[in-house]
C-alpha cells in the first residue's frame, strides 16, 4: 500500500511544489540568518459530545496555514499566514527575515533531503473520515453501559474527538520532513449521587490510532467502569490529612509527578537561559539510586509520540536521569545549537501559528524490582494516590504541585478509607531523592494528557511504576 504523503497533499491542493517552497525559503535567506524554516499544516478535527442521554451537537473544524521562522543567534523572527498561496508565504518570509539587519548576498537553502521513512502510527483510514453516525453510536453505547453500572449514577457525559494533522517542514539546512498524524480521544465523566453527597468520576483513553481502535468494547468498557468506580468510591471519601507524609503513587497517570517535578525543568530553553532550578546540574545526583527517567517520542501509537518533531527532527528516546544522575535536557534546534549539543527531537508547537519550543513527548520512570503490595505494606502511615487531575510547576524555584482525585489512607501497611482529593506540593530538584521503593509494574497512562507551556497546548504521555516517596506535603484539611 502506498501512503499518501503530506508533500503530495500540499502540492496537489495548494500548488505548493518544491520550486515555490524553495523560493520562499530563499526569500527568508536573503538576510544573514543561522536558520530558517517553513512549517505547513493542514488539520481537521471532528467531535461529538453526549450529555443527558443525547448527542446535542456535532463539530468539525479545519485549520490550515504556514509559519515562517528566521533565526540569528538567540533572535527569532516569526510570521504566519492562514492563506496557503505563494504571495502570502513570500510575505511571511519577508516579515520573518526582518529580524536580521544584514544582507546575506543571495544565499540559497541546501538541497532538500527527505528524512528517513518511519511510521509509528499507520492507519488505514484517517480518524476524521469516520462517519459521524459511528461516533454517535459509540458515545450512546458508553452512556447506556455507564448508567447500567450502578443506580447511584445519575448523569453521564461522553465525548470522542478525532484529529488528522498533516505537516510539512522545509528548513535552510536541507531538512525536508513530513508527517501525517492521527489522534483520537475518548472521555467519560459520570456523576453519582447518594443522599446529599454528589461526586464526579472521569476517565479517558486515546492515542495516535484509527477510530476503530476505540469501538471495541474491550477498550471502552474499562474506561466507563473506571469513571463509575471513582465517582462511587468518592461518595464515601473522608477529608484528607494535611502535612508532610509518606506518599505511595500508583502506576500510570501519577507519572504526572515526573512531568511537573523534573520534565519542564529539563527543557532546553530554561536551561540555556539559566532560569531552571536544574540549570548547570548535568552529572549531579537529582534522584535516588535506581531512579531512571526517560522521554521517548518513538513509542508506537502513543499520544505523545511523533515520527518527527515540528522542526523535522526524528524523535528519540532521551535519558534524562540515569540511576539518579542527571544526564541531559530536552532540546529543540535553536537551544541545541546555542548550547552546543544535538537536538533531541523535542521541538514542538501547538500549530503553525505558534513558535516551536522544547517540549516533552512520553515521559516515564523505568520499572524497579519491588512488588507493589510490598511497597504498600512498608508504610505505617501515609496516603496512596492513584488518580490525578492536573499539575503545575514554577521551574525557577522548582516548586511543583499535582492534584489527586482518588486517594486512600494507608495505616499499618494496609489500604484504608478513601480520601477527598488534595493537592500534593514538592520541590522538583529533591523530590526524587526521596523515592525509596520502585515497583516492577511500570504502566503508561491511557492517552489523555495535554501539556500547556507559554499558552501552547500539545498532547503528551506519562508513565510510572508504583513508587514510595518519603515526606511529600499533602494539602488536605485535617491536621
Amino acid at each position, binding site marked *: 500500500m502506498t501512503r499518501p504523503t503530506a508533500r503530495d497533499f500540499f502540492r496537489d491542493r495548494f500548488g505548493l511544489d518544491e520550486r515555490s517552497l524553495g523560493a520562499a525559503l530563499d526569500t527568508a535567506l536573503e538576510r544573514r540568518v543561522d536558520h530558517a524554516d517553513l512549517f505547513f499544516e493542514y488539520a481537521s478535527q471532528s467531535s461529538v459530545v453526549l450529555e443527558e442521554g443525547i*448527542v*446535542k*451537537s*456535532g*463539530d*468539525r*473544524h*479545519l485549520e*490550515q496555514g504556514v509559519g515562517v521562522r528566521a533565526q540569528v*543567534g538567540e*533572535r*527569532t*523572527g*516569526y*510570521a*504566519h*499566514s*492562514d492563506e496557503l498561496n505563494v504571495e502570502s508565504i513570500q510575505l511571511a518570509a519577508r516579515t520573518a527575515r526582518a*529580524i536580521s539587519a544584514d544582507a546575506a548576498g543571495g544565499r540559497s537553502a541546501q538541497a532538500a533531503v527527505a528524512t528517513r521513512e518511519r511510521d509509528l502510527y499507520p492507519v488505514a483510514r484517517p480518524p476524521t473520515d469516520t462517519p*459521524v*453516525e459511528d461516533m*454517535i453510536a459509540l458515545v450512546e453505547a458508553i452512556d447506556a453501559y455507564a448508567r447500567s453500572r450502578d443506580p447511584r449514577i445519575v*448523569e453521564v*457525559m461522553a465525548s470522542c474527538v478525532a484529529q488528522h494533522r498533516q505537516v510539512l517542514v522545509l528548513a535552510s539546512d536541507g531538512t525536508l520532513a513530513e508527517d501525517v498524524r492521527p489522534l483520537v480521544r475518548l472521555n467519560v465523566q459520570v*456523576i453519582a449521587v447518594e443522599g446529599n453527597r*454528589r*461526586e464526579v468520576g472521569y476517565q479517558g483513553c486515546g492515542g495516535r490510532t484509527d477510530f476503530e481502535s476505540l469501538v471495541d468494547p474491550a477498550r471502552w468498557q474499562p474506561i466507563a467502569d473506571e469513571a463509575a468506580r471513582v465517582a462511587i468510591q468518592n461518595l464515601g471519601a473522608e477529608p484528607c490529612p*494535611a*502535612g508532610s*507524609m509518606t506518599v505511595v503513587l500508583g502506576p500510570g497517570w501519577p507519572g504526572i509527578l515526573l512531568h511537573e517535578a523534573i520534565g519542564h525543568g529539563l527543557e532546553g530553553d530554561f536551561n540555556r*537561559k*539559566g*532560569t531552571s*532550578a536544574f540549570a548547570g546540574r548535568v552529572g549531579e545526583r537529582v534522584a535516588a539510586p535506581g531512579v531512571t527517567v526517560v522521554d521517548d517520542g518513538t513509542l508506537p501509537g502513543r499520544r505523545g509520540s511523533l515520527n518527527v518533531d515540528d522542526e523535522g527532527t526524528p524523535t528519540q528516546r532521551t535519558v534524562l536521569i540515569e540511576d539518579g544522575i542527571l544526564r541531559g535536557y530536552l532540546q529543540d534546534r535553536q537551544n541545541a545549537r546555542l548550547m552546543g549539543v544535538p537536538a533531541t527531537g523535542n521541538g514542538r508547537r501547538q500549530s503553525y*501559528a505558534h*513558535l516551536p519550543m522544547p517540549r516533552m513527548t512520553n515521559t516515564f520512570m523505568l520499572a524497579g524490582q519491588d512488588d507493589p503490595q510490598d511497597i504498600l505494606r512498608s508504610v505505617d502511615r501515609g496516603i496512596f494516590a492513584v488518580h490525578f*487531575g*492536573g*499539575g*503545575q510547576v*514554577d521551574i*525557577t*524555584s522548582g516548586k511543583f*504541585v*499535582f*492534584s489527586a*482525585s482518588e486517594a486512600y489512607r494507608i495505616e499499618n501497611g494496609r489500604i484504608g478509607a478513601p480520601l*477527598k*482529593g*488534595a*493537592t500534593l*506540593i514538592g*520541590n522538583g530538584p529533591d523530590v526524587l531523592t526521596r523515592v525509596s521503593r520502585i515497583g516492577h509494574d511500570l504502566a503508561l497512562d491511557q492517552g489523555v494528557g495535554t501539556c500547556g507551556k507559554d499558552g501552547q497546548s500539545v498532547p503528551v504521555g506519562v508513565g510510572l511504576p508504583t513508587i514510595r516517596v518519603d*515526606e511529600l*506535603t*499533602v*494539602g*488536605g*484539611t485535617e*491536621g
Partner: protein
Amino acid sequence: MSELLEAAEIALEAARGAGADDADTVVVASESTETRVRGDEIDYVKQAHQRTLGVRALVRGRDGTRQAITSTSDLAEPALRAMAAEAATLARATAQDPAAGLPDSGFADPNALPDLALADPADRGVDVEARVDAARRAERAARAVDPRIVNSEGSQASSGFSQVVYANSLGFRGAYESASHALFSEPLARNGSGMQRDYWMSVSRRLASLESPEAVGTTAAERALRRLDARPVPTCEVPVIFDPLTAASLWRQVAALVNGYSVYRGTSFLAGKLGEVVASPSVQLVDDPLRPGGLGSRPFDGEGLPSQRTALIEDGRLRNLLLDTYSARKLGFESNAHASRSASSAPGAGATNLYLEPGQGRLDEIVADTPRGLLVTELIGMGFNPVTGDYSRGAAGHWIENGALCHPVEEVTIAANFADMLQGIDAVGEDLLWLSSVASPSVRVARMTVAGEA
C-alpha cells in the same frame, strides 16, 4: 469588515441551501505583533494574521432542534460553502433538543451599539520598533532594580486588533472592533538561598493607557526580590489573605459555579442555591460587559443579544446565573446575554468583566489587622472540585505575625471547602485591580488549612 460580512452572508446562505432551517455564524479576524526582549537581545518578533469563520446549522424537527458546528480558517468561497453545507449535514445526524435554537427575539440594534471604547484609532498601524523599544525599556528597568536581579525570562510587548462579526438567519448583523495592548516583564532574583521569579504586567485597550515600561519592569523585579529566602511554614489553621491578583482566581471559580451549564448539569455545588446566602454579606459580585475600555467588554453577546450588567451576588446572596439562550431555556429562565462564543465553538455561557466591588481598607491595613496568618501572592495547580467545593492549591506569599509581614513562604498548600471560604470572607479591601477581565480587591478568608512542614 465588509469582507468578513460577505463571508458571513455566504456561510448563512450555504447552510440554509444545504437544508438548515436556521443558522448563525461568527467571523473573527485578528492581527497581532508580539515581541520579547531578554537581557540586551531581542528574543523574538512575531507577527500574525488569523481569520476563522464558524457556522452553526440548526434543523428543526417534531421534538426539537438538531445542531452542528463547523469552522474553517480557509475563507475562500468554495471552502466556506463546503464547511457550511457540512454543518447542515452533520446536524441531521444529531438528536432533537427542545432547548436548542437561536434566541426568539430581543436582538441588539446593530445601528445603535454602545461605544465601549474598545480600540483607539490612534493606535492603528503598529510600529514594531516602538514595541521592541518598550520591551527593552521594561527589561532594562527590571534588571537595574537590584544586583540580585541576575536573569530573566524576558520582557514582552504586544499589540493585537480584532474584528468580530456575528450574523444569523433571523436577520441580525452585528460587528465590532477591539484592541488589546500589553506589557509584561518576568525577572529572576538570586541569592545564596536560591532563585525566584515573579512578573508584572499592564494591559489596556489603548496604548496610551498602559503603565510605563519602567514601572512594569520595576514592579516585576520588586515582586521577585521579595520572594527570596521563602520557606514552608508548619501545618496550621489560620486566616488567609489573597492579594488582588490571587483573589481574582476565586471569582473565576464562582463564574464557573454560576454558569448556567454547570447548574443544569448539576456539576456545581451552587446549583439550586439561587436566592440563598452563599457568601459573607461583604460580597458584591458583578459582571458588567458595558464597562468602557473593559478587557471583557462587548456591545452584544455571542448570540446577538444586547449586553447588560448583571449582579451575581448581592450582600452575599446569589441573585443571578450567567446564562445564554440554551442554558436559560434548560433552567426556565430568560438569557441575560452572557453567551460567549468563539468562531469554532457552540455558544456557551460565561463572564465578561467580572469583579468584586471594593470594600474598605488597604492591603497593609488588612495585614495589620491579622495577628497571625498567610498573605497569598501566587497560586499554582488546579485543585478545585466544583461538584463538592473541595479546594486545595499550591501557594506562595508571606507569613504574617503580629500584624506584620514576617518572611516569604513557599511550598505550602492552602485548603478548605470553597462554600466555607465564601461564607468566611471577613475583609474586602479598597484596592480593586484590573489586570484582566476578572478583577478583585484583596480579600481575607477567616480560616483555611495551610499545609507545610510536619
